[in-house]
């Protein structure tokens, strides 16, 4: 359940190529991160997956069935779209009730308890919600549907730090309790990195990397210390980022850190630390 496959999907809007031959395989019950810059094509991919728009070329399969115009496939997914798709005059509570009509496994009590935790009044009309509470409203619905596949497009837009924290915890609590396939699309990498099991990096309509996050994090590291020593260490290596404060320098190296690198660093009196996923992401998507 939940095997999603993009088969050579391309999408163009007139002259603009939004997606170029995207092929992708997603397994069930993992938390995936779809990472990319603004306009890289994340939302386009998700819109095609959830039948909002049509691919120009190629198809997307769910359990070997084409998802386009497929009632069965679409009811197994719930997508927290960035678009404002809810009627302005609808109240939060009403939206819960109607979602339950279309997603029978929607947990109404859970949704209401989440609303309380986030401080969202269920009597409020959609048009009266601020940007942050609009996101909260939509993410609560997404969490409560109990669909086999749930998709979040920039879920933390406009959320303050407390609400972001609460969201991650509630998402993980839910995921731990009932495994689902989760896709989080965002450009805010570091916050979300620890939650993801696997990340897909998209750049200008192209998938450039798909890897377990743990592996991605191992593919770069940071050395820091005295400037000349750092330069010596990094001479034959791929430096993807550097910072300097006086003679103190830290350089992010793209490559794996094995014992020889550790020994060399030790001998040069350098510290080795991890490279944040964000730095790696910036380098890869530049």
């Amino acid at each position: 359940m939940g095997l999603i496959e993009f088969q050579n999907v391309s999408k163009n809007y007139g002259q603009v190529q939004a997606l170029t031959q995207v092929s992708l395989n997603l397994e069930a019950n993992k938390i995936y991160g779809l990472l990319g810059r603004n306009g890289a094509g994340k939302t386009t991919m998700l819109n095609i997956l959830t039948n909002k728009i049509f691919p120009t070329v190629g198809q997307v399969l769910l359990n070997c069935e084409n998802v386009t115009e497929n009632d069965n496939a679409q009811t197994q997914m719930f997508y927290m779209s960035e678009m404002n798709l809810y009627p302005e005059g609808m109240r939060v509570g009403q939206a819960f009730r109607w979602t339950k009509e279309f997603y029978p496994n929607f947990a109404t009590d859970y949704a209401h308890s989440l609303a309380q935790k986030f401080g969202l009044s269920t009597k409020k009309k959609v048009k009266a919600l601020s940007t942050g509470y609009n996101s909260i409203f939509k993410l609560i619905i997404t969490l409560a549907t109990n669909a086999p596949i749930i998709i979040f497009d920039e879920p933390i837009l406009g959320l303050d730090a407390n609400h972001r924290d609460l969201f991650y915890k509630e998402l993980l609590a839910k995921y731990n309790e009932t495994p689902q396939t989760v896709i989080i699309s965002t450009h805010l990498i570091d916050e979300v990195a620890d939650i993801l099991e696997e990340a897909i990096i998209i750049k200008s309509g192209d998938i450039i990397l798909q890897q377990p996050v743990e592996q991605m994090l191992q593919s770069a590291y940071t050395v820091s210390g005295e400037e000349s020593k750092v330069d010596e260490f990094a001479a034959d290596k791929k430096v993807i980022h550097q910072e300097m404060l006086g003679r103190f320098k830290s350089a992010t190296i793209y490559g794996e850190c094995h014992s020889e690198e550790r020994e060399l660093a030790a001998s040069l009196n350098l510290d080795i630390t991890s490279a944040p996923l964000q730095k790696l992401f910036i380098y890869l998507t530049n």
Partner: protein
Amino acid sequence: MSILPKVTKYQIYDAKNAVLIYYLVILSLVALVGVYSSSTSSVSVVDVTISSNVNNSGLEAPTAVVKREQSMQEDNSFNASGLEGSTAIFLFVLGLNLFKTSFKFLSANGVTRRRFFRENTLAIMIIAALLTIIDTIMGATFKLLGHYQPLYEQIYGNITLLNGIVWAFAYYLAAIMLGWFITMLYYRSSSLLKIVISISPAIVFIGLTYLNRIWGHVFSTIGQFFIKFWSINNLNSYVAARNLLLFTVLLGGLVFLLMRRAPVKD
């Protein structure tokens, strides 16, 4: 209510308020006219046209445009006519508003275009049937109160109730479908095309007037077509009903084609 398909259920729920307001307005106007006409010696026939603000955020409360026409009557009795005309116009406007907001919301809930088309068609059939029944009952009530003629009687003379109901249903269904069709045209059109569509009735009319000057038979041909369509020549309401249903099916087909590749946009 719970055995209905979900989309049907939602669409009927969405239309509920508009329908209630419409009948509230009708009844208030009828009550006002009833009071007015029974207390004066001159009688006016009130022709009520209900129109609505059609804008992107959906149906606003209908506003009533009341036209008065003088008519000669012998007694101070309650007088009204042609409820069906108003209801048809109301349903046309309803049709204009039943797509955009609902389509977005239902799309967010995993409803495909095919499913929306199917279940919405059922919804409009139910709405048309419901309003037919309501209008028939209201018409019968008005008849008891005074001189009232349903629109179909005015056109076809004294036909049976069943006749009238079938005709009204077909009329209402066609009205909603026409509204849906036009809203689909707009939805699928670029801004330029929207402008073109908006001014095309005027252009067509001007064009026809010009052609009429040259050829001379244009308007009479069109007139003949309408007479045949509504079976006014033969006064056969069943033929009219059949034609209206065919018209509905034709528009439905076009609506389906327009919907097939419709993107969901903000």
